[in-house]
């Protein structure tokens, strides 16, 4: 299996709700995926031929062909991974979706984090190239084994430190605010001082040997960014 980045993974979002497609496009692009959106089944089939997505996020209720019909036609074109979305939570719909070949099924409303986790799970099951490791210089993070190394030396991180480093490595060069890091690592429901981020960044710097703060740079008044 080839190593790669999320940017190598193409996702086609098919939903007739502009607000849904827009937020999925924004969120998935932010996570590094290459995203295209369409609003109906006919367009989905056409774009899929040309875009050749690794994964299709497909709404059930679509104008023209419905989601099940689109799914069957997509599978006739190529055996691509499909994650279905629906606002209906009838068991029959779920069963039907999975029986006609969907890899997973998500009922609205859903959390973006859950969608992201399911996207990754589907891609893993499909053995579609995912960046199992994130690297910046000689700093390497393995998502599967949750191991971090600097050069040949293994670094032992706490779970929080690992998640913090993963968030920074996933967006190399991009400044992540303290609030963003808090939300990604500690969760939306975390109530507390943002100093906790500073404390963990400080500990992380010590462990990866970044005492001169060149690897994890502080953007004053904004947040942190990782530099190669």
């Amino acid at each position: 299996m080839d190593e790669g980045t999320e940017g190598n993974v193409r996702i086609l979002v098919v939903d007739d709700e502009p607000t849904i497609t827009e937020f999925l496009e924004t969120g998935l692009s932010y996570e590094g995926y290459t995203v295209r959106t369409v609003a109906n089944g006919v367009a989905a089939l056409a774009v899929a031929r040309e875009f050749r997505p690794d994964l299709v996020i497909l709404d059930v209720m679509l104008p023209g062909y419905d989601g099940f019909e689109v799914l069957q036609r997509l599978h006739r074109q190529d055996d691509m991974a499909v994650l279905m979305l629906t606002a209906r939570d009838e068991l029959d719909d779920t069963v039907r979706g999975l029986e006609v070949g969907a890899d997973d099924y998500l009922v609205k409303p859903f959390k973006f984090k859950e969608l992201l986790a399911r996207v990754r799970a589907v891609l893993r099951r499909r053995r579609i190239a995912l960046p199992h490791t994130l690297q910046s210089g000689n700093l390497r993070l393995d998502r599967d084994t949750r191991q971090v190394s600097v050069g040949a030396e293994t670094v032992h991180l706490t779970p929080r430190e690992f998640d913090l480093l993963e968030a920074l490595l996933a967006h190399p060069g991009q400044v992540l605010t303290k609030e963003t890091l808090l939300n990604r690592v500690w969760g939306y429901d975390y109530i507390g001082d943002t100093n906790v981020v500073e404390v963990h960044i400080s500990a992380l710097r010590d462990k990866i040997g970044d005492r001169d703060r060149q690897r994890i740079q502080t953007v004053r008044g904004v947040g942190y960014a990782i530099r190669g």
Partner: protein
Amino acid sequence: MGRRWSNWSLRTQLSLAVAAIMLLLLTLFSMALYVSVRSFINAQTTTQLQLQARALLRERADGPTSSGSHEPLPTAAPTDVQRAELQELAAALTSSTTSVVVYQADGTVLAQSAPAQERRHGWRPGHGLRGQPRQPPAPPEPPAPPRPNDQAFDQVLRGADVSFRDYDAMERQLAVLMPVYDGSYLIGVLQISTSLRPTDALLRWLVAALIGGTLLVSLTALVLSLWATRVIIDPLRRLVGVTQQVGQGDLAARSNLHSHNEIGALGRAFDQMVARLQATFAVQRRFIADAAHELRTPLTAVGGQLELLMLGAVSDPTQQRRTLQRMNGELERMGRLVDDLLTLSRLDARPALRREVVDLALLAQDVAQQEHLPTPDHQLTINATPSVRVIGDPDRLRQVFLNVLDNARKYTPPDGSVRVTVEQRAGEASVAISDTGVGIPADDVAHVWDRFYRVDQARTRTRGGAGLGLAIVKGIVEAHGGTATLTSTPGSGTTVTLSFPLAADDTPTAGQSPTASSHSLADVGVRSKTIVE
């Protein structure tokens, strides 16, 4: 006992009641029969004795057999000849079943029959039937003739026949007292009596037969009632079972009672009721599911965008502002949906509507102008007969026009036209709103008034709402006593026709909606592409 009785099954109660009633009626019947039979036999026996005695008395009688007077008759002591005759008379009347005593008027016995057993069998002590001496069993001593009481005896001395019954230690006897005359003088009183032993035996048998028969019939009635009530009550038990099933939530359960009696009618009525409940619950479930479905999509959008903001995925201020505007739009959409749901819920509760005079032509014009419906790009024509007035709630009626015109806007191309016709037709106020839009397929026309029904089953947001607009229109129109119909030709357009009862001509216009009443067609400003004919 009361509690125990109420704890018994209906079948047991009915069966026991039938058996108890049967027992009571048969007991009363048996008692009446017993008394009647006993009276009849006694009367017959008395008559028989009287006839026997009277027949012989007539042969010798030279006086009245009965004076018919209440005064004591003159009496005379019998002569020797008369004594002999009376003794012969006694002997003649004596039989195997009767005993005779002749009294003088002073009560002394003048003549008395021999013991009946002795005469009947010719039996003598020490002689067998074949003349062989043997020791026979001692015969029962015949009862002594009954002795009349003074009152009965006095009545006879006054010339009346008297009967009385007498009990001794062994058996009951029936005796008849009759006066014996010689010319105008009463010379004696004849008493002829007979044992009631056979009669009593018959009556005892009758009592036993009646008691046995009553018990047997009552028991049989109990058994048959248990069987019959089982046949009757089994359908009720089935109904109880089905009711319990329904109570536990199984609305598909049915009694399927097809008999043509009252229980069958009850079963059919029950099944119909459950079917209606099932349909109502199905509609409600569907309604709730549809409402939840309609809310899920904007919730997902708002939640997702909020999540992206929190994750820092939207960092550009312009993009953040756009995201917040979209979230606001979704919240407004959810607000409209909740408003529509509340409107439908209130219409379902059949609220009392405001009752004001509303001029429909003015209202249509007002809505079109104020709400910019359909759109400035559509050509709107309002063809109105003046003073088509109805009694109703101006705000609700305004919502009707809003919803129908909004639909026309959504489904009519920008260069299309919308025509509103307000007129009196067939004694009603008629509003027809026609567009030159995409039209509705024939299969969908019948369903457009259903809640959450959308011709575009994908429920795309590009044009449609939640599918509640026409349901609200129908609810409001019907709340005003009107009707709403829709005709459509795919590709040509759609016409929604609303009919309302007209307001009476003399209905005062005071208090009518300012929106509807304070303008005339001439007053209403006409938009650039609006034509008022």
